[in-house]
């Protein structure tokens, strides 16, 4: 599995490297070949099975989307590549988002999702119900995201805000997006494994790590609030 981290210098504010690390480590420990490449803003987008889009500040987010509009990302997704996006990365995939100085900056329009500026900034721990599982993370954003018809949210918010207080992120056949930033895949081993299984098309053997304990602890702590 080739994992490409897109523009970490622009989209890497909140420990976003943790997601690439968790994906590669959890693959390698099961004997699945995994390679992480960091894509610099001066690089052409390389071929990859999975592209990671992280979080970033307004200026860098705008530059990232400008560069991605000229890149092969849209084409590569059309050809079957997967994307895992958090926070600013989630917004970039949609039709428009709000940054300082522009309330409707044009996104990549890969998914029918639009983001405006929310009344308040959403900062704090986020807990959502994703299918049978719970997802824990931390969010820090000012976006209010609405999904177009036919776009499914990733999960329902149990604690925190996500897109709009009800739902968080979105999911398509090839794309996962969430407001839980940074190391969300490191903290949610089941979710990391689900992404690996989908991208590689393999059934994964169980892998016990200390991340399981961390996950249990965070879910318990957040569920009791």
């Amino acid at each position, binding site marked *: 599995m080739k994992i490409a981290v897109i523009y970490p210098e*622009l989209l890497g504010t*909140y*420990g976003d490297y*943790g997601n690439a690390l968790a994906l590669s480590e959890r693959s390698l420990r099961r004997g699945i070949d995994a390679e992480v490449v960091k894509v610099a803003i001066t690089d052409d987008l390389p071929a990859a099975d999975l592209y990671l889009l992280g979080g970033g500040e307004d*200026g860098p987010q705008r530059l990232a989307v400008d560069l991605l509009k000229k890149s092969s990302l849209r084409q590569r997704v059309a050809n079957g590549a997967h994307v895992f996006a958090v926070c600013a990365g989630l917004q970039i995939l949609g039709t428009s988002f709000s940054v300082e100085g522009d309330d409707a900056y044009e996104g990549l329009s890969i998914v029918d999702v639009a983001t405006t500026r929310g009344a308040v900034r959403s900062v*704090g721990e986020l807990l959502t119900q994703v299918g049978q599982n719970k997802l824990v993370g*931390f969010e820090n954003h000012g976006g209010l995201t609405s999904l177009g018809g036919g776009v499914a949210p990733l999960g329902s918010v149990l604690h925190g805000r996500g897109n709009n207080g009800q739902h968080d992120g979105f999911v398509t056949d090839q794309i996962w997006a969430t407001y839980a930033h*940074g190391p969300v895949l*490191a903290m949610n081993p089941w979710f990391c494994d689900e992404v690996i299984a989908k991208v590689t098309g393999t059934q994964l053997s169980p892998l016990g790590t200390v991340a399981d304990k*961390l996950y249990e602890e965070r879910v318990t702590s957040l569920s009791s609030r």
Partner: protein
Amino acid sequence: MSNRLSPRGVLALIALRTVNSLSRATGKGSGTVAGGRVGLAVYPKLLSTLSKDREIILVSATNGKTTTTALSVAGWSSDVATNSTGANMPAGHAAALAASKATCAVLETDEAWLPAVIEATNPKVVVLLNLSRDQLDRATEVRAIAERWRTALSKTSEDLVVVANANDPLVVYASEVANEVRWCDIETTWTADAVSCPKCTQSISRSEGDWSCTCGFRKPHCTTRVAGNEVTIGDRSVEVQLSIPGQFNVGNAAMAATALEVLGTDPSNALTSMRSVSGIAGRFTVRSWQGRKLHMLLAKNPAGFDALLESLNPGSDDVWIAINARIADGKDPSWLYDVSFERLQGRKVWCLGDRRLDLATRLDYANVAYEVVDDLNSLPSPSSTVELIANYTAFSDWMQRSTE
């Protein structure tokens, strides 16, 4: 100083001193901030009034501001007022100045408060060490702070001198608008917050000690330089022997000495006097805990952590690391993934603090051996001194637990 205060100012000063002694007497605090707050509420101009006719150095940064403040105080060959308890906002400044008759002052200043404090205190020198991500859940993102510093420094008086780290593009961006800048070439390992240019957001290219952007923004020419333990200010070089560890502290000392040189203190004497600084509020000191010797190291954010990990003695000794995520630490420990814990491969880390499982998970993914410590009695008793690295409230927990 009271003779220059208006009646309201005198009242404010009395209120400040009363609250300070009450606060100390009741054991509710060291008493600096509470009194300062009351004083400023009664008389908002109190800080400006207390600053009049003093030579003031302000020190600000994400990392190293407490240490550099202490080094500047030690290097200044006169009586100096300072906020040595780390109360680094206007209330703490007002309290520190009210408590001292010294005409010289060095004030550690919170990054977000710097513009207001420059305006209130009219400093002679502002020392700017670095800017990097820290507590993003409650603080402004770093580029916004650099922008505010720049606006403040573009409006300052002509005789203000900025002493600035030329290896941090965000600091250079903030400082270049000032009338006079002494640029310092000091080791800066953390570059992740200024990978893209603060002026044009394009990529900054770096090579062997230099950096530049295609827009023309580049590292300025430096008059203070550091090579190993040798500090050069202008055309004079001094071999420095500090009592506190880390190459980053040689850089801090060089910047403190540059600030003092601006105010007429001989840098060689200043650097020699800085040797008396052996620990600041417990940082860098060795303390005892249940028969163990602990080397107390504070690291609050990725830049500080990376600098400390780099300064650890090479070898395979165990390291104890304590991580909390309380309000004063920032409640989001995601930053652990921005720290290069991979440097610790080959050692074993004992994971402590409220968020020891977050740390253990990070170390596991970094392939570093670890042990999660749920019970402090299970900690080993090595014969050598243990390196204990802790973030803010975890550090303070271990200060309380241990003894001198």
